[in-house]
């Protein structure tokens, strides 16, 4: 193998690489930093390969999307220019493959001047002031301008906006005045998400990033996942800012403002306060939320556990209908429904499979519905005065919260869905240094911290939580008898598509809570439960294709889909930047938090059992729970 490697010298350092490696990649291997604005670590060939690596299609690398020329490395920003000995002019290192031994310099006066010229030219078409930009402080263009000493407007600056900022009604807000045409958003949307909502319209100096027919994001086939926002080097893509509305509610003495916090933001919000990725700040955040003025702080883990009971019961009941009653209206495999990006994706692209979606609402919506009914009743609060806020790692949750059907209680389940970034800003505005705060537990009656809820934040987490519960309910045995410490490792990891099997060798009696759904579990004895997982909707496409072709995934009973790479921890509302290492660190934080909790199974969450005793008395998937905790979907074009 060694003979095939080529030796390149970069800044005097020798590095051996496989032929075809770009100079940029080789420099990274050698630990030499070359600045980039259009290249992103998630969009290099290695990351793309890993993103689509998976169990059922092992080794399948080039899928149809890569045929598209618009998705090849654009080398559009020209910031990564380097000198190559013996070659005239400077070369973009991201687009310079190594085929012969070469000597490269990544820094020289010519390179530094060229980079500064390029930045100054970018600024000549960049309208907007840094102080008034959501990315002030996290902007890659701003940072490079500072690094390379851009101190004047040598080529001028636009004094009028060149484009209108399309804000109203959009969750993904695009401000093309700040766009540098790097095309990271276009490539992310296509290669990781398979959505292709964005493209390059026009040519040359008329090019701009646009949707089909230049529609606004709300009218495009966008799924609001926000992955484009996390990759945008500037402030051209941001989420709708709901913080003013939340501050307003907090300061209204007439309103009771309650917030629920999802698991994924806790593992990431520290990054906005200088912590290493993967620093969980769950309980410090509770202190901060109280200090900011929220009346109650609840744990979305509660409703995640509630979701598992509803979704798990739905699965058992579907299996019973399909396998025993031979009722062909019970669509299998059942698909999870907690990722609102995935929901909009299937509504747009695979509407035929809407019956396969679990009708269970997502944890965010379940919590909202419970707050304005059960909780309000129990505490004598007027539901019309409750403002229900959620902290989510997600931009699509804003869309989900606003879906017109999410108001079965007579009130909106969730009034405002904040992203991790928005809440981080609120803390900063309140002068809070999050990592330094004391810890505060969650408020009752939804305060039991459970591991099964926490792992919802990582890809495979919903499946693991569901398996822990379904296995124990059906067999009457502890899941630890099959998996050490109840860690169902086969469903963990970052492969794009994964499958796992679980054999049910013995069955127990039907617990009372499910007695209205099935008479016994005898029909499940000796059965093998097959589950699948996909994260990043481009992998969802691969699962759907496999199902359509009758492949192994069509034989699954239950499939978890997460719109974002890595699951919620890689969500579009999480702190910027993101890459595989950061996501892996967040996943580690989530799984280690799970391991520390006493209650790690949804059906053992005392708060959940109590709500079935006191409120949803007929049990999961009953009339009342259907009214408040379940929903429906619609086809979109």
């Amino acid at each position, binding site marked *: 193998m060694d003979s095939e490697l080529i030796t390149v010298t970069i800044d005097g350092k020798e590095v051996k690489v496989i032929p075809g490696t770009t100079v940029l990649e080789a420099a990274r291997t050698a630990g030499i930093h070359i600045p980039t604005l259009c290249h992103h670590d998630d969009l290099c060939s290695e990351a793309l390969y890993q993103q689509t690596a998976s169990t059922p299609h092992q080794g399948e690398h080039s899928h149809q999307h890569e*045929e*598209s020329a*618009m998705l090849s490395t654009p080398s559009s920003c020209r910031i990564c220019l380097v000198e190559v000995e013996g070659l005239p002019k400077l070369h973009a290192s991201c687009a310079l493959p190594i085929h012969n031994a070469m000597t490269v310099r990544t820094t020289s006066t010519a390179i530094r001047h060229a980079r500064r010229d390029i930045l100054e030219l970018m600024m000549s078409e960049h309208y907007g002031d840094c102080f008034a930009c959501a990315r002030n402080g996290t902007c890659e263009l701003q940072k490079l301008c500072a690094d390379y000493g851009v101190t004047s407007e040598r080529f001028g600056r636009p004094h009028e906006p060149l484009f209108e900022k399309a804000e109203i009604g959009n969750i993904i807000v695009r401000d093309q005045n700040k766009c540098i045409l790097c095309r990271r958003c276009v490539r992310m949307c*296509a290669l990781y998400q398979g959505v*292709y*909502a*964005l*493209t*390059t*319209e*026009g*040519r040359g100096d008329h090019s701009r990033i*646009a*949707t*089909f*027919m230049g529609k606004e994001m709300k009218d*495009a*086939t966008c799924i609001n996942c926000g992955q484009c926002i996390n990759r945008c080097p500037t402030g051209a893509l941001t989420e709708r800012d709901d913080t003013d509305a939340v501050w307003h509610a907090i300061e209204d003495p007439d309103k009771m403002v309650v917030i629920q916090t999802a698991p994924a933001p806790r593992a990431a919000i520290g990054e906005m306060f200088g912590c290493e990725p993967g620093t969980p700040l769950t309980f410090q955040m509770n202190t901060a939320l109280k200090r900011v003025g929220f009346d109650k702080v609840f744990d979305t883990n509660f409703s995640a556990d509630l979701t598992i009971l509803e979704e798990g019961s739905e699965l058992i009941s579907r299996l019973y209908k399909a396998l025993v009653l031979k009722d062909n209206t019970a669509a299998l495999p059942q698909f999870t429904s907690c990722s609102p990006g995935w929901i909009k994706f299937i509504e747009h692209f695979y509407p035929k499979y809407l019956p396969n979606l679990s009708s269970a609402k997502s944890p965010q919506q379940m919590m909202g519905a419970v707050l304005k009914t059960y909780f309000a009743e129990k505490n004598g609060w007027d539901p019309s005065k409750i403002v229900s806020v959620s902290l989510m790692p997600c931009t699509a949750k804003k869309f989900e919260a606003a879906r017109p059907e999410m108001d079965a209680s007579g009130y909106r389940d969730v009034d405002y869905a904040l992203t991790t970034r928005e809440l981080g800003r609120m803390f900063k505005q309140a002068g809070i240094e999050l990592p330094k705060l004391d810890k505060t537990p969650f408020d009752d009656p939804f305060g039991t911290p459970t591991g099964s809820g926490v792992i919802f934040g990582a890809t495979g987490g919903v499946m693991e939580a569901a398996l822990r519960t379904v296995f124990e309910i059906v067999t009457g045995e502890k899941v630890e008898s099959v998996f050490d410490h109840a860690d169902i490792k086969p469903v963990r990891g970052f492969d794009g598509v994964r499958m796992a099997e679980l054999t049910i060798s013995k069955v127990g009696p039907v617990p009372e809570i499910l007695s209205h759904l099935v008479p016994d579990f005898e029909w499940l004895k000796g059965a093998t439960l097959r589950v699948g997982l996909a994260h990043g909707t481009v992998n969802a496409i691969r699962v759907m294709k496999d199902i359509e072709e009758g492949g192994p995934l069509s034989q699954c009973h239950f499939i978890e889909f997460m719109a974002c790479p890595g699951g919620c921890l890689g969500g579009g509302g999480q702190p910027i930047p993101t890459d595989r290492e950061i996501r892996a660190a967040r996943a580690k934080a989530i799984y280690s938090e799970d391991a520390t909790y006493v209650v790690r199974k949804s059906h053992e969450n005392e708060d959940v059992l109590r709500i079935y005793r006191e409120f949803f008395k007929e049990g999961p998937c009953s009339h009342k729970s259907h009214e408040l905790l379940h929903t429906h979907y619609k086809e979109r074009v």
Partner: protein
Amino acid sequence: MDAQQTLRTEVEQLVRVHGRTRTALMPILQDLNRAHSYISEDAMLAVSDALNVPRAEVYGVATFYSYFSVKPRGTYVIRICRTISCAKQGDYHPAIAALFDELGIGMGETTSDGMFTIEQTNCIGMCDQGPAMMVNEIPHIKLTEASVRSILNEYRHAALAAKKAQ
């Protein structure tokens, strides 16, 4: 058949000619552009479905090439050469003035009867015979004020004859 269905049938016919592959995208768009003078939103959606190419990508291709348009244009698209060798010819400005005057529209506009659109083009290779313009895919050379008016009349007659034939 409604308009959408007609377009889908038309695209299916083009797919039979050019194939159901990504590489058929360009020839299909060219044929649609030729037949309708532009590629409508519905046409792009039909192509997207037929070839399984994302609609945004079809749009990206359709907006990349200046001979394609995604906005309605006249039956005859007039492209005046704006390259210097044409523009330096003595008859250039009077000829263009006659074009604007005869049609009552400006650059980039379409006549109200939907017959003519005036656009500009870069060099069309007629430098030795300028001023030149293209009407759809036919070049017209050595333009003068008088020849422009008679060329327009020819196209008007052709359109009228085509209408009668229908």
